[in-house]
């Protein structure tokens, strides 16, 4: 029993721990859910930038709340979400303005957002702003009201993904063909940005603005090595993220560590373990001479995830377009 028994007892006794656990589990569900789309659309950096910009919105919320007490009834995270949404639109605009330097949009928005946050937080001096909590998360400060708010936002995220799943997947895979099929790409891309902003606001208290993109991308990065289908990718990502939340929270309680950091470190540990297991398996296969040709259709019916990249390229004998296998082999070698 030991730590775990003590942990369960503590959750039973202290409401703040229960709230922390619930908030963590909710964030651990929606972050990788959106993360799966974010990663395959190569938008990981944008999620990070939006999380930083959100800080400016939150600071604005604190400042307005302090100046006009009537406004303090709105949650500061609401301001953060609004500012992140505006930033998402600006990024899209800037990407078309700097067509041949489209990645420039992200540092422009991100540094402006951080600059704005610093100035606003400076102005709010004297107001009780938990800056460290905003940056690194303060899951133990989550109240029952926060849990309800987070749960409501998470429901919106899950519902929207369920509604537009086939359109979002099509847009992520082949935007041009999706547009020809009449998928309303502009509206959906905006909705998608809004979902990222919502997820960030859900995860902000749990891991903090600096670590949100870790919760969005790390579990997906691990799942990407194993999943052959998009559904499996989402499922595995969520399993990895929830494991990170549970183990990270327990570890932070047992060893008195920072919670957000612990959760992210566990997620990074899972990713390392997946990569290491992949390499071991690869080495084992090589030694066993398992790289001989297998006829197509052998894996029929196995929707389960199997990291058999090395076998794949050999069996299909594909000629012109570069297959993903060599790159993967190189990355596996790098781990040696």
């Amino acid at each position, binding site marked *: 029993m030991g730590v775990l028994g003590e942990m369960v007892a503590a959750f039973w006794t202290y409401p703040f721990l229960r709230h922390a656990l619930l908030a963590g589990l909710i964030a651990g569900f929606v972050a990788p859910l959106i993360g799966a789309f974010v990663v395959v659309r190569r938008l990981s950096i944008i999620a990070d930038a939006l999380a930083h910009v959100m800080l400016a919105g939150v600071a604005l919320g604190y400042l307005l709340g302090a100046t006009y007490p009537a406004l303090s009834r709105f949650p500061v995270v609401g301001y953060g979400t609004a500012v992140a949404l505006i930033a998402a639109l600006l990024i899209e605009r800037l990407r078309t303005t700097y067509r041949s330097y489209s990645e420039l949009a992200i540092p422009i928005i991100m540094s402006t957002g951080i600059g704005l946050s610093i100035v606003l937080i400076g102005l709010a001096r004297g107001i009780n702003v938990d800056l460290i909590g905003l940056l690194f998360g303060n899951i133990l400060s989550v109240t029952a009201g926060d849990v309800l708010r987070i749960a409501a936002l998470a429901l919106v995220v899950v519902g929207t993904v369920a509604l*537009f799943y*086939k359109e979002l997947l099509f847009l992520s895979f082949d935007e*041009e063909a999706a547009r020809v099929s009449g998928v309303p790409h502009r509206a959906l891309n905006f909705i998608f940005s809004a979902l990222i902003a919502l997820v960030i606001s859900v995860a902000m208290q749990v891991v903090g603005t600096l670590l949100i993109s870790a919760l969005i991308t790390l579990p997906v990065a691990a799942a990407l090595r194993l999943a052959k*289908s998009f559904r499996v990718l989402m499922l595995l990502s969520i399993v990895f993220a929830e494991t990170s939340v549970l183990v990270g929270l327990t570890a932070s309680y047992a060893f008195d560590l920072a919670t957000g950091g612990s959760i992210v470190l566990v997620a990074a540990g899972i990713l390392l373990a997946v990569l290491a297991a992949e390499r071991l398996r690869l080495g084992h296969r090589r030694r066993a001479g398992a790289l001989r040709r297998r006829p197509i259709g052998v894996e029929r019916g196995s*929707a389960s995830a199997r990291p058999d990249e090395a076998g*794949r390229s050999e069996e299909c004998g594909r000629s012109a*377009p570069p297959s993903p296998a060599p790159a993967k082999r190189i990355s596996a070698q790098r781990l040696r």
Partner: protein
Amino acid sequence: MGALFEKERVLEAENITFRYEAEPVLNHVSLTLHRGELLGLVGPNGSGKSTLLKIILGLLPLQEGSVRWFGTPIERFRDWGRIGYVSQKAASFNTGFPATVEEVVRMGLTARLGLFRRPGRREAEKVLEALDFVGMADVRHRHIGALSGGQQQRVFIARALVGDPDVLILDEPTVGVDARSEERFYALLEKLHRERDLSIILVSHDLGVVSEKMDTIACLNHELFYHGSAAGFRAEREAIVGRTYGHGMAILSHGHASEALRAGAREEGRA
């Protein structure tokens, strides 16, 4: 051949002129496609083929001219499920994308289903049927990136076919595919034509094969240099190629557009 042109007009593009910034890409180009017609759109690299496709597919705005699908102006056309499209990107997609063959083909039902409707059992059957048609049903649970280039191409054709389109548009489908797969591809096209009476636009810079396999040919190099029957094209091939590609160009060379020799009059080879 003559009977072909009395059939319903599926696509009418008229007088399309398009420029990127100041640079003219298309100059008064008109194109017609009839039901059951196999049209080969050929021209050198950079001749505006892909731009023309993007305009008729509504991916680029119409600057001048008009496009009608099944008689409806493109501005009001909503029935995109009738058009199956295999983009050039299909040959260069992100092979690391975690999707099975089945998931990729299911995407092709998006237009038919419309918003808010999810694929059910009937859709699963359609997916299997389309995969069966292109001979890829056996690998439906495999990762799309694990297939060979030729197999991937057939999966993308299945994706375009799964919504039962009336028109199939293929942009450079045989690029990056080995000779055997190319043969299979043309056999598949013939089967589609025979069994489903599909109208097909095939974009290619490979004049040789296209002029043998298609009913009609359109030769494009910023403007249209020939639009008519493949037989007519073969009869005057040297002259048309000379005008389109610039004189002195070998027939099958994949050169870039020659700006100097675009003086040739637009040829109407239609019956």
